[in-house]
């Protein structure tokens, strides 16, 4: 039986025993379609959803003035990102996430936006450390103890050592690990 025969009359029935109103499949199809739409869910492309789908690593970094640091944006569907440091006085980006810190110390926000869909955003925090203090010369020289000795090769050992103390400095290496340096620098070097 053709489908059209079931719905010949606007009142529904043309054949006894077939009590399906014509509006039923219409309503069912409408409800099914609208039900498939589902409710809204938070996705990474909506506002205030930074770092939910797209991520930036490292998430926190400390760099020395003028130091470069590679940031990486990761998103499930691949592709590249556009980078910025906020405020802009913090440094510059070149290439694919290579950050060069300025000499202006302070805390900055690193922002990446996905080029394939700019609605996706992620951010990180970068701290530019203060520059190391200038080395100071002091008249308090350090002299090595012990008498002078001359070795078989003519080298002098235990001679007086003249130089200057190196004030402690703190900086960060390429991986963001803090390093502390202090000691003594002989005059010959």
């Amino acid at each position: 039986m053709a489908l059209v025969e079931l719905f010949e009359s606007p009142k529904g029935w043309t054949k006894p025993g077939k009590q399906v109103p014509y509006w039923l499949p219409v309503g069912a199809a409408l409800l099914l379609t609208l039900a498939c739409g589902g409710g809204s869910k938070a996705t990474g492309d909506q506002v205030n959803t930074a770092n939910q789908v797209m991520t930036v690593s490292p998430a926190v970094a400390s760099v020395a003035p003028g130091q470069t640091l590679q940031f990486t944006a990761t998103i499930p569907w691949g592709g590249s990102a556009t980078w910025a440091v906020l405020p802009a006085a913090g440094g510059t980006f070149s290439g694919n996430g290579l950050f060069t810190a300025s000499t202006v110390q302070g805390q900055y926000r690193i922002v990446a936006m996905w080029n394939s869909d700019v609605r996706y955003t992620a951010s990180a925090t970068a701290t530019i450390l203060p520059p190391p203090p200038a080395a100071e010369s002091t008249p308090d020289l350090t002299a090595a103890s012990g008498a002078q000795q001359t070795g078989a090769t003519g080298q002098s050992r235990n001679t007086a050592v003249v130089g200057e103390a190196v004030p402690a400095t703190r900086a960060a290496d390429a991986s963001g690990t803090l390093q502390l340096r202090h000691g003594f620098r002989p005059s010959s070097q």
Partner: protein
Amino acid sequence: MPVSWAGSPWAFGFQAALVFPSNGGLRTTAGTPSVSLGLHGTWALPKGLRLRPRFDYTVFAGATRSSTAAPLPQVLDTRVSSLALGADLLVPLGPRWSLGLAVAGVRWSVASTNTVTSTLGGSMTLSGTSHWTRLAVGPVLTFKVSDHIEVEGRALSSHYGYQNQPATTAAVGLVWRF
């Protein structure tokens, strides 16, 4: 005089409709309501069936969302549009009513401008347009006003975006047959 589709097996025309996003996600991104325009052909089949291949172009109203949450307050402007190429299969329910199924391939486009502002100072703005092609399916109900004009209602279910978000629309429009 009863209205009839008898005559030429082929007819052509255009259609216009008001389109309403009916799921929250699309409503957030696209805004509401929207306008759709298109062209179609109608092929009369046996038993009163009709096949209607059609092309529809829809431009949604656009939407702006903002967030003031630290550390990255954000303003996001989006405008959604779609190009749909498909066909409706219509079954007559009487002299004037028809019920059918619509199937189409839809090219979704979202043009976005994203502005983020750091609480530490400075802002970044980037604009771009993204595209996805997805299938759309749904019921169609038409009422024949005259030999040249029909009123139709359509409910289509589709998806868009890299996360395949639902995109469900309901449309009410007029179909003009030349």
